[in-house]
């Protein structure tokens, strides 16, 4: 965690007004407990996915341990629904916390890991963490780390054109901002007189696979790039739940009200490396947002260590059992490769 980011967070996220969610710096107790439960569920889910990978119940793992303190608040703050009146999400493959906070069933993530025919996100076609949920305006997550930044302005343009109250949220990692699509996002969202209601997020874990951010980027903060386009920006400590919540709330309120873009960078951790390709082992030299939040909850006497341990054990057991059931679910049939090529059935002309 860079000190720059932490300093920035205290000054940039402090402007949030008090609301039913809590006071200026602290969320209401019941909300804290709900966020904790979701963060824990997201963490336990990722641990189960990694175990499934290690036990041969999946070919590849990639996910978001270390982004929960930011991604869970995001999922809770979204205006969830179908169609242009609600928020659109263009996420990346570390977004389990957001999906769970929106109400996704963690067992469906296990199905995608095991690439079963019952996987609702891709029917066994895509990697773990590659969510798609049209019912909640979650566009399909794809493996290229940048393309969502070029696609997101389109849903925001639709929201602008229809005068909807919904906004478009796009998220990606720090490494992906080196791609031209990130510049595309900044340019297209800030055209004068045609500004788009977009919350542009970057979760900065300071690595692109094995390559540190520092050696590849001259900009001090990624969020600074937004300044050239006249949009408000912030870099915050994404390992802190409340900082993240208030920063997201402030940015979303701005986008909802002003119908203009906002660039928010969250400094986060990457607690199990890039993916299973680098072993998915846990790292010890980065802040663990979950332990940090749990410590806070203990100090605030909202939840005891014993209660949290019990919750974790129960969730772990539930997902273990679910993974055994998922193992027995059918794999996709070979001939299913021909399904969903076209949205109409006319995909081999002249042949019925």
């Amino acid at each position, binding site marked *: 965690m860079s000190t720059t980011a932490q300093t920035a967070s205290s000054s940039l996220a402090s402007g949030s007004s008090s609301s039913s969610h809590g006071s200026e710096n602290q969320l209401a107790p019941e909300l804290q407990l709900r966020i904790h439960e979701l963060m824990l569920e997201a963490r336990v889910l990722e641990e189960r996915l990694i175990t499934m990978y290690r036990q041969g119940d999946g070919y590849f793992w990639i996910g978001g341990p270390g982004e929960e303190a930011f991604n869970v608040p995001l999922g809770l703050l979204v205006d969830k629904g179908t169609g242009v009146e609600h928020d*659109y999400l263009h996420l990346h493959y570390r977004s389990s916390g957001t999906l769970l906070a929106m109400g996704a069933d963690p067992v469906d993530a296990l199905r995608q890991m095991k690439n079963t025919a019952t996987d609702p996100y*891709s029917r066994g076609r895509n990697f773990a963490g590659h969510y798609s949920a049209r019912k909640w305006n979650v566009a399909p997550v794809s493996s290229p780390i940048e393309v969502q930044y070029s696609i997101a*302005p389109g849903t925001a343009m*639709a*929201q602008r054109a229809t005068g909807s109250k919904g906004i478009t949220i796009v998220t990606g990692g720090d490494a992906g901002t080196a791609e031209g699509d990130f510049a595309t996002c900044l340019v297209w969202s800030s055209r004068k007189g045609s500004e788009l209601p977009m919350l542009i997020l970057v979760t900065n874990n300071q690595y692109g696979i094995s390559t540190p951010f520092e050696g590849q980027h001259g900009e001090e903060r990624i969020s600074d790039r937004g300044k050239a386009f006249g949009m408000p920006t912030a870099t915050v400590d994404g390992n802190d739940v409340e900082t993240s919540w208030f920063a997201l709330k402030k940015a979303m309120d701005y986008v909802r009200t002003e119908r203009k873009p906002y660039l928010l960078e969250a400094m986060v951790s990457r607690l199990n490396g890039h993916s299973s390709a680098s072993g998915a082992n846990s790292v010890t030299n980065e802040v663990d947002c979950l332990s940090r939040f749990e410590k806070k909850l203990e100090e605030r006497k909202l939840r005891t260590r014993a209660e949290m341990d019990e919750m974790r054990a129960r969730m772990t057991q539930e997902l273990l059992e679910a993974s055994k059931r998922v193992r027995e679910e059918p794999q996709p049939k070979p001939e299913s490769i021909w399904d*969903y*090529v*076209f949205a109409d059935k006319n995909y081999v*002309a002249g042949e019925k």
Partner: protein
Amino acid sequence: MATMIQAIRMALHVGEERLGVTDIFGEDVGPPLGGAFTATQNLKTAWNSPLDERGIVGMAIGLALAGRRPVAEIQFCDYAFNTIDLLKIAGNTYWASAGDWNVPMVMMTPVGAGIRGSIYHSHSFDAQATRTPGWKIVMPSNPRDAYGLMLSAIIDPNPVMFLKPKALLRAKALPGEEIPGEPGDLKTLSKMIDAPVGESRSRWKPEWPKLEELYIPIGEARTARTGRDVTVLTYGRSVPMSVSAADELASEGIEVEVIDLRSLHPYDWNAIKASVRKTHRVLCVNEDTEVTNFGEHLIRRLVEELFYELHAAPKLLAGAHVPGIGLADNLEHASVPHKDGIKSALRELARHEP
């Protein structure tokens, strides 16, 4: 009798008036220019985009996801190469999400040689396009087909790529290629829908003819000329060239059948098979470079499925596999098929004794 560019413009007009088209956009697509070839002049939903092809394709995908009906233009297909992974996403979104999200968008782009466009305004895109599964690909060879294919593309629930043969955009329609509802002569139509050049343009309003809808089904070929001796499988600019070559060969007693594919994917295999079963001899003609060319795919499938029907080895006449099309007349001419080359190839096929 519209030109192809007028036909496309009229189809887009019908699209935005009656078929739900919401956004027609790209570089110089909106006022004042209305498109590098005027395809989008005076359209009420046309707007100018930043000079960013990846942004254009991404915007179209996003609009389509949000239920809009976009028609995006890449000004020249030579500039679509940096959009290929976004084209791939448009093509795989329905499949990758197992039917959760479809992407009803049209991407149109001028393709091919014939206007002395040198290295970056002469490229073809059919080989690349047909290697992007999940897309439907169409390429008209006359104004009527351009109109009918565009209307079909607009209402299709999938991404459809509309390849505009640059060299034919200003060619006049032939009898039988009328668009239902257009005035009979080109001058009248031009006066109605072509914006004047100069200062009066900003005050000028088009008078759109009362056009009828015409849907050319995607996936259906057209027999541009019937014949018994050799089949030409072609599309776009090479269609009128092949028909003209065939007309000239008639005096030599060679009767050539020209199949205008119109759709490259899905393509009309039944029409291809029926023609080849009749003539037993095949020439594929297109402008894209010859290595890994769409015509090669057709020949491979013909050899696999109709080997014993063939009386001569199928031939491909395509663009030279060189990195660009040179500006000088001789260079452009030497790089893509022309009538004389088509005639020689057809003669050779017709006279071949098995």
